[in-house]
């Protein structure tokens, strides 16, 4: 996190910050339309299978007659209305479909979803579905930055990615090198985050970015094998990390 939470700047990412009672800010990552649709389709598939199993198993007991049919309808009722609620209130906070896509339902505050909120957001599927095929839900999701459907808006819930994305590793090892001049905190942070992306940038781009930091690089020692800008900047990054020998 590059910006301090106390200074609200216009956000350019989709992160949804939530402050906790401990005084830290959790960056919730709202899930977008595509992953949520995937999760929904998976859940739909699972529900259909469950319905099918129910119909087959209870239909097979022809002798049960009305009892079998009644149990089947009750089962279908439970699957239609309680399937998402039961799973969302469970340990993982997600239906199997959401879990497979790596999503989770939480409150706006980052807390686990409450029973009332889960009931609200799932009963309001009815409104999201209108006029057909979740049209209202999709339009609402595209119109607000947290990608909430009507049910989420009313319940105060968020569908977020359960796992954080890892874009930065520890800087790769290099002999430490003191910078040419004292660096401000911002400059230090920039160099360290540049070094953290060593594995994810092409060497050319990595070198190009390192050249931008040329003024901070120490002069080359005459007589030593000449080293590229990125190699020397990695040394500076290690020095900034606290490596001195």
């Amino acid at each position, binding site marked *: 996190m590059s910006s301090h939470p106390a200074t609200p700047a216009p956000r350019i990412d989709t992160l949804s910050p939530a402050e906790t009672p401990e005084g830290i800010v959790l960056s919730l990552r709202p899930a977008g339309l595509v992953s949520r649709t995937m999760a929904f389709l998976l859940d739909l598939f699972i529900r259909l299978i469950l319905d099918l199993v129910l119909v087959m198993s209870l239909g097979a007991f022809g002798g049960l*007659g*009305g009892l079998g049919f009644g149990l089947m309808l009750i089962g279908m009722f439970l699957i239609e209305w309680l399937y998402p609620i039961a799973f969302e209130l469970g340990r993982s906070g997600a239906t199997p479909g959401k879990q497979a896509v790596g999503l989770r339902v*939480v409150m706006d505050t980052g807390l686990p979803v409450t029973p009332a909120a889960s009931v609200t957001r799932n009963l309001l599927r*009815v409104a999201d579905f209108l006029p057909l095929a979740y049209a209202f839900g999709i339009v609402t999701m595209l119109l607000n930055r947290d990608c909430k459907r009507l049910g989420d808006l009313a*319940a105060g819930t968020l569908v977020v990615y359960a796992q954080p994305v*890892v*874009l930065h590793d520890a800087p790769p090892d290099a002999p430490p090198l003191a910078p040419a001049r004292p660096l401000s905190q911002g400059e230090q942070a920039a160099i360290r985050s540049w070094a953290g992306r060593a594995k994810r940038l092409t060497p050319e781009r990595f070198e190009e970015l390192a050249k931008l930091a040329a003024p901070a690089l120490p002069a080359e020692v005459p007589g030593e094998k000449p080293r590229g800008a990125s190699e020397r900047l990695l040394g500076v990054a290690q020095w900034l990390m606290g490596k001195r020998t």
Partner: protein
Amino acid sequence: MTPMHFEATYGPLWEAFAAELALAKLGKSADGALLASQYRRVCEHLALAQSRAYPIHLVARLEALTQDAHQLIYRRQDYGLRQLSRLLRADLPRAVRAQGRFVLAALLLFAVPLVAAFLLAWSGPDFALRMLDASQLRDFEAMYGDGKNVLGRLREAGDDWQMFGVYIFHNVGIGFRCFGAGILAGVGSAFMLLYNGLVIGAVAGHLTRVGLGHNFWPFVATHSAFELTGIVLCGAAGLRMGLGWLAPGRLGRIEALAASARAAVPIVYAAFFLLLVAAAFEAFWSSAAWVAPNVKYGVAAVCWALVVAWLGLMGRHTGRETNHAR
């Protein structure tokens, strides 16, 4: 303190914390006090790392750790079974009374067209035919007719279960939709209430006019106490939510919607409970032909009184107690 020193000093603590979290996540017993104190330490470290602009991989690691722990530590501890009886005895009736104006509005939206349609359909055949198809009316007449295979005759126990399933699937679904439609500024709920009132009134009036009332009224008297109340409550919840959208007052529109949904949900719980009871009565009691109509009317009167008493009276006393406690 350099990032390396920071990581070297506190790394073991983070690892221990992560291991403890993984254990607790699997449902194994973890030391709650230790977990909480470690969590606070890690939060502190995260705040430090953020304010000192430590390397992103370090901050991200702490963020992931705290987010995991946050979900775990603030998890609900019980599944509310103990609360359920409190909910039924006190919280639900209180929540319904708190939204009395919406319940009244929903009642009017439902009962006025019902009574009007009943009177119109009772006085002549025109109105019922305008509301419903002739074939639908014939179906209803056949259902409550004096023949052998109709509702109110003797039937197998298994068929009672079948009807129980049908009523749950169908009626509770209608109730839920009645609530969900309320998010469209309450118009959806109002429409559902009006429409259902008109149809039910027209059918009742028509059946009474053609002289099938002696089959119809004993059948519906008991479960209607729960079912009609359930529909009205669902509609009231929908109206409550629609108002948040329509007239947000001093809140933002989204906040107002969330707040009114919170107020509406207990009413939906109450309605769900009533509709479940209605389905049970409709399947197992209303259809019992061996019970004399007068007995059914008596039970119906008791049931109506129970519903009104539940919604009107229960939870008042405990309400005062908790107010004193506060």
